């Protein structure tokens, strides 16, 4: 495939070669590689998107798969063969229940503020929980919310998608059902005497956190 803009000067390699190149690059990297990165490393005029697509079909049903992680691609072993890989299994620190719930709330409600997480769980986010999730590289800071105090928000990362085998945050299990049931709506309490609510003001201490 030649780039029509620069005829002849930088001849793109044939499709089959491009596929080999994408294969080599994805194989070599243990982290997912973005199309932009593939594009930067492959010869000029290459079309990494279609190379990856051909590669994905080629590995369909094999012992390793080409999987999509957000905007990036990676080779991963087929999940049904996990039982052979006990030696490689990494012992992950068990997450607390609070950390697991906080992670799920961030994933399903992102971008979400700390106050919103606390409202959903009914308790304050314990010190260290957010820290631990950031340390795991599963969450990161998102845009500030355009509400009074402009609180920081949290969103999930590409490493989160990679870890849980998700192509994108839209593929979270049960997301559609939750949305249809209105359970992801930001529904403010009807007003009076909602004493259990965390303070919304930025930097305001909580009266009654746990």
């Amino acid at each position, binding site marked *: 495939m030649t780039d029509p803009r620069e005829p002849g000067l930088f001849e793109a390699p044939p499709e089959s070669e491009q596929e080999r190149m994408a294969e080599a690059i994805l194989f070599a990297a243990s982290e997912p590689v973005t199309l932009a990165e593939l594009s930067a490393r492959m010869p000029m005029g290459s079309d990494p998107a279609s190379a990856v697509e051909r590669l994905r079909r080629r590995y369909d049903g094999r012992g390793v798969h080409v999987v999509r992680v957000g905007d990036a691609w990676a080779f*991963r072993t087929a999940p049904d063969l996990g039982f052979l890989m006990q030696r490689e299994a990494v012992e992950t620190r068990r997450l607390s229940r609070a950390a697991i719930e906080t992670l799920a709330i961030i994933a399903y409600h992102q971008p979400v503020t700390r106050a919103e997480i606390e409202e959903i769980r009914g308790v304050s986010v314990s010190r260290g929980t957010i820290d631990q999730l950031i340390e795991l590289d599963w969450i990161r800071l998102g845009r500030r919310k355009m509400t009074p105090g402009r609180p920081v928000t949290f969103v999930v990362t590409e490493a989160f998608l990679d870890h849980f085998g998700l192509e994108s945050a839209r593929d979270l299990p049960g997301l559609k059902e939750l949305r249809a049931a209105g359970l992801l709506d930001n529904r403010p309490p009807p007003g*009076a005497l909602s004493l*259990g609510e965390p303070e919304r003001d930025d930097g305001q201490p909580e009266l009654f956190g746990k």
Partner: protein
Amino acid sequence: MGHGWDETPDAQAGRLAAEALIVDVDGFEGPLDVLLTLARTQKVDLRQISILALAEQYLSFVAEARAVRIELAADYLVMAAWLAYLKSRLLLPPDPTVGGPSGEELAAHLAFQLERLAAMRDVAARLMARDRLGRDFFARGIGEDVAQVRRVTWTATLLDLMRAYARIRTRDEFRPLVLDRDRVMTMEQALERMRGLIGHTGTWTELAAWLPEGWQSDPVRRRSATAATFAASLQLVKEGRIEIRQAGADAPVLIRGRPPAAGGDPG
């Protein structure tokens, strides 16, 4: 089942559940968690639970805790006060002098919160049960060492950056503890003060009016005194010494003393 003839099976199950919760109270993540657990004992879909029955269950849970002298954290008591209020809103005919949302609206929101929390727990479990990297599927085990070109890149994480900044900015912020203490009012101090004054007011008075002199203008002191006074007033509600109300989210919190004869449990 040798217990109470006068109890319906539902009520009995609820009471037994409340007793069981007490044993394990440290295992709960706050009042909403307890409510959700209690709601599950009603053995119906969360959308069909009776909030009134749930309020009863929770209040008997709190009463049970008190009976066996278990100290509940403040937010459990706040929830109890709120549910007692909700229960009265649900049982009594609407009072036109009290504004704000109806008991039904409040109950519906609580049901929503419970359903949402249950849903989040459900998807959290589904998430954790997925095939996971490093457990069920794996990345390439050998890093390629083909190229001999060694280029050093310097890296730092956002956490490094923020910690570095915090380190710099807090270096001269550390002061002796006493400096902070004189800007902090404890709940015990507030309680002692309120007990002394409570007999004198039979009319609704704003919570803000209870702050001692010298604690009303400095924001840090005012905040601390407000928190302590509010916590203390909840304790007094619990003891049946005062009543508390608020007409809306932004409306002032009002307090008034209660005649000794009417003393008793708000639940």
